[in-house]
């Protein structure tokens, strides 16, 4: 398919036509932050933004999600099997790093043996329309982890902002079909394409933050017992900011909530930062201190996940760097690992 384009002036109309058919999520301003929310009109979308506070993972993997409802006191378990919506969804305006994180998520939730139907039911019916990053932030280090400001991993369509219009790259068949179907897309002329090349080249040079990660996994292979971990966690507060705001962190807890006879089993984001995460009922905790918990976080992202899925569980979005209350910067951690 040829490169296509859409004029910015037509975008709202395009989104409006999408809304009639899809549930559309897009960046909007909410409570002082950028958030991915369902929109009901194309004009709600915010286009001038760096990235959302919380990663869009919550569209597929919400912080609290009902696994099933139940009623106590009746016949059997009283479980009401969940049903899944089938209205197709679009995420518009997701950043390429976050689109990539979905591919990483698939390794866990869409694995061969056990498909996580709650995740896959949403993921499979969602079309991902990313917008490339003309103005990456100083904390963006996507290029160090195999991504980039215009990476197409995980996207069905990638939009590149060339001022008055977006050049549209259709990455998947699904993306191509959508482009064909909507009249707002036109073939991109030579001028648009040359502008696009300028933009992408410029933005790639804007990613100044780089971490060598090629050797990280190899280093970590031999570092489990390294005294490095004895001090690394010292300033860590043990809160969940880095993991909850991480687009690739996927750990969860499961709990029952009952009011009177009605109840539900929910899954809730959980984090390796909390002692409770691995505390057994007997009182034994295999990760009793900040040291083991910090080691788990780093190892999981940059070694175990690579062992198991051949990709690091980090896309370099920089959220954990921006919001850590004590400025424990993962880039510093990665650099220190390489210097061991």
């Amino acid at each position, binding site marked *: 398919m040829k490169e296509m384009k859409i004029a910015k002036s037509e975008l709202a109309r395009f989104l409006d036509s999408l809304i009639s058919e899809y549930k559309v999520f897009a960046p909007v301003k909410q409570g002082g*932050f950028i958030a991915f929310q369902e929109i009901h009109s194309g004009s709600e979308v915010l286009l001038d933004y760096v990235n959302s506070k919380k990663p869009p993972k919550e569209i597929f993997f919400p*912080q609290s999600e009902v696994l099933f409802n139940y009623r106590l006191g009746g016949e059997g378990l009283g479980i009401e099997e969940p049903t899944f919506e089938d209205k197709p969804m679009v995420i518009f305006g997701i950043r390429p790093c976050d689109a990539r994180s979905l591919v990483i998520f698939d390794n866990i939730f869409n694995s061969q043996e056990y498909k996580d139907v709650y995740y896959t039911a949403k993921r499979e019916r969602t079309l991902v329309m990313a917008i490339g990053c003309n103005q990456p932030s100083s904390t963006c280090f996507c290029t160090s982890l195999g991504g980039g400001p215009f990476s197409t991993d995980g996207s069905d369509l990638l939009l590149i902002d060339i001022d008055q219009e977006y050049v549209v790259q259709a990455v998947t068949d699904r993306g191509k079909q959508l482009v064909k179907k909507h009249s707002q897309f036109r073939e991109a002329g030579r001028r648009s394409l040359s502008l696009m090349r300028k933009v992408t080249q410029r933005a790639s040079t804007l990613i100044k933050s780089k971490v060598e990660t090629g050797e990280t996994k190899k280093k970590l292979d031999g570092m489990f017992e390294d005294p490095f971990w004895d001090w690394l966690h010292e*300033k860590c507060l043990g809160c969940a900011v880095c993991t909850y705001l991480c687009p690739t962190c996927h750990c969860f807890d499961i709990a029952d909530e009952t009011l009177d006879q009605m109840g539900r089993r929910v899954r809730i984001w959980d*984090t390796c930062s*909390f002692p409770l995460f691995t505390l057994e009922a007997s009182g034994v905790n295999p990760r009793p201190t900040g040291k083991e918990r910090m080691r788990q976080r780093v190892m999981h992202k940059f070694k175990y996940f690579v062992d198991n899925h051949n990709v690091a569980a980090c896309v370099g979005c920089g959220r954990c760097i921006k919001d850590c*209350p004590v400025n424990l*910067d993962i880039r510093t951690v990665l650099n220190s690992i390489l210097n061991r």
Partner: protein
Amino acid sequence: MLNTSVMIRDTAKKLLDQKRVDLIIGFETGTLPLRSTPCFVRTSEEAEKLIWNASCENNLARYLWGRKEKVGIVAKGCDTRSIISLIKEKQVAREQVLIIGIPCHGMIDRRKIEAKLDGKEILEADEATERVILKGSDFTETINKAEFLHNSCNTCSYRNPVIYDVLIGDKVEEKQGIDEYGEVKEFEAQPADRRWQSFTNEVSKCIRCYACRNACPLCYCQECFVDSSQPQWIGKTTNLSDTSMFHIIRAFHTAGRCVDCGACDRACPMGIDIRKLTKKIEKDVKELFHYQAGVNLEDMPPLAAFSLDDPQQFIR
């Protein structure tokens, strides 16, 4: 600033070399503009990295409990007040800490600056005594520090360390005539349903990351009520009732102990106005029991004491 940094380093080196402390907890340069980061220094060589500036915002008293070694701690006025609370509550022994007190001009609130810049990113910040020069990819702007301090710094009347073993530099003049509880009074004046609405609006942002709790120097409970499973006091989801209960109880647990250092507020990634609660409690403790936390080592903590004529109009 530079001068203060040098004095902190010299003091730290001396203390470590003379083996008067095993560890110095202070700040080093962070990885982002306007961002210093806590650091732990055990040798005089490492002491070289210690710094001081207007982004040393973390309350380092948070790192004191549970330690065995003798600790030197770099402490602002509010930090020393937290240390007093910890000493009173027997979480730290006075002899175990060597307080390197720093008179403080207030810490810069990055979020206020970011709001002013309306999304433009700061790439570099040059801090002078009263101003900061901010540089971005396409702008340079000079701001007055005093206009961008944390709210807790704006209402602070303990800018000088309350207790210390070493004082770095000269004491600063305490602010006069500040309306310490202005925000609380403003909130009190609203109708009840508006107050509830605005409280729940705030806590609905909560992602239960517990950064507020974990940043607080006084949240040292072995088992926090949110983590208890028998009984399970509150649910684990972001259900509004549960998050409300979490914030009410956490704030209540700071009664008579909170020194309004603002650590909880700064730690919150979602910008929840946590001080709205803690400041109210602090005000009530002062008005009802004439107590201020962390201003001396002698007064009994108010909830561990009573007076026969404590107010009881609310009791039938």
